[in-house]
């Protein structure tokens, strides 16, 4: 503490350690919170086509088309250690080829301060619903779930499933005409 430099250094170092402690305390104050909430999902239009997947193998694969309704209020999930919610809508199903298929159809970045009451009607998906083969036609049980990945200022990155999911069937025949 003798020279100006050592005093300045000591103060800076101490401030930084206090900041680290506060950040950790902020993390602790939010880590045990329950981030689950309800979401209402519904599929509106569902059809399936069989076309060549040029982005992957170039073979003919099943391509599903759906539109969906979504209603949820995520306002309560935000607190001082939530910077962003990454919302994503997953279609999960089982086929002969694969025990588990998960395809993200739609996602949304929801920053803190933005309107967190979501009400979508007849939304189109953001990504193509390609199957890894020809497993979609006539599929009896495809489950749609909404999940969110919580992005904190500092802390863990939990992925939470919304309460409420929706299952739907694909039609038994391919749609030939362009949609």
């Amino acid at each position: 503490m003798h020279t100006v430099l050592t005093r300045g250094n000591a103060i800076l170092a101490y401030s930084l350690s206090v900041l680290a402690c506060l950040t950790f305390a902020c993390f602790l104050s939010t880590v045990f919170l329950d981030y689950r909430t309800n979401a209402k999902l519904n599929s509106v239009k569902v059809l399936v086509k069989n076309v060549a997947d040029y982005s992957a193998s170039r073979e003919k694969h099943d391509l599903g088309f759906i539109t969906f309704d979504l209603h949820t209020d995520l306002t309560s999930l935000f607190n001082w250690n939530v910077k962003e919610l990454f919302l994503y809508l997953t279609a999960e199903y089982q086929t002969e080829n694969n025990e588990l298929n998960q395809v993200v159809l739609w996602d949304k970045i929801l920053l803190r301060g933005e309107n967190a009451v979501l009400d979508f009607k007849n939304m189109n998906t953001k990504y193509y619903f390609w199957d890894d083969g020809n497993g979609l036609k006539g599929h009896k049980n495809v489950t749609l779930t909404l999940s969110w990945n919580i992005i904190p200022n500092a802390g863990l990155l939990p992925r939470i499933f919304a309460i409420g999911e929706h299952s739907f069937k694909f039609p038994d025949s391919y749609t030939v005409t362009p949609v």
Partner: protein
Amino acid sequence: MFNIQTHMDFQGQAKAEKLSRFIITLFGIVGFIWGAVIQQFFQTFIILCAGFSLATLVTVPPWPIYRRKPLNWQKPKPESGDDSKKKKK
């Protein structure tokens, strides 16, 4: 470097350190509580920065209050013992 006295006496140093820690800790705690109340961690950070600035202002420059108790050095002895002393220092 510059012809400015920058030192503090020993008790001044102790005082400066205690004071700076107190200021920063206080601002940290107050900032944390305030940030928790309005749910904005950024405000906590700003308040801590304010504490840092205040502590810098109050304890880094060698204000006169940190120099009230200078050490009473012994008067230099006559020439003869000078060389050996320097080495020991």
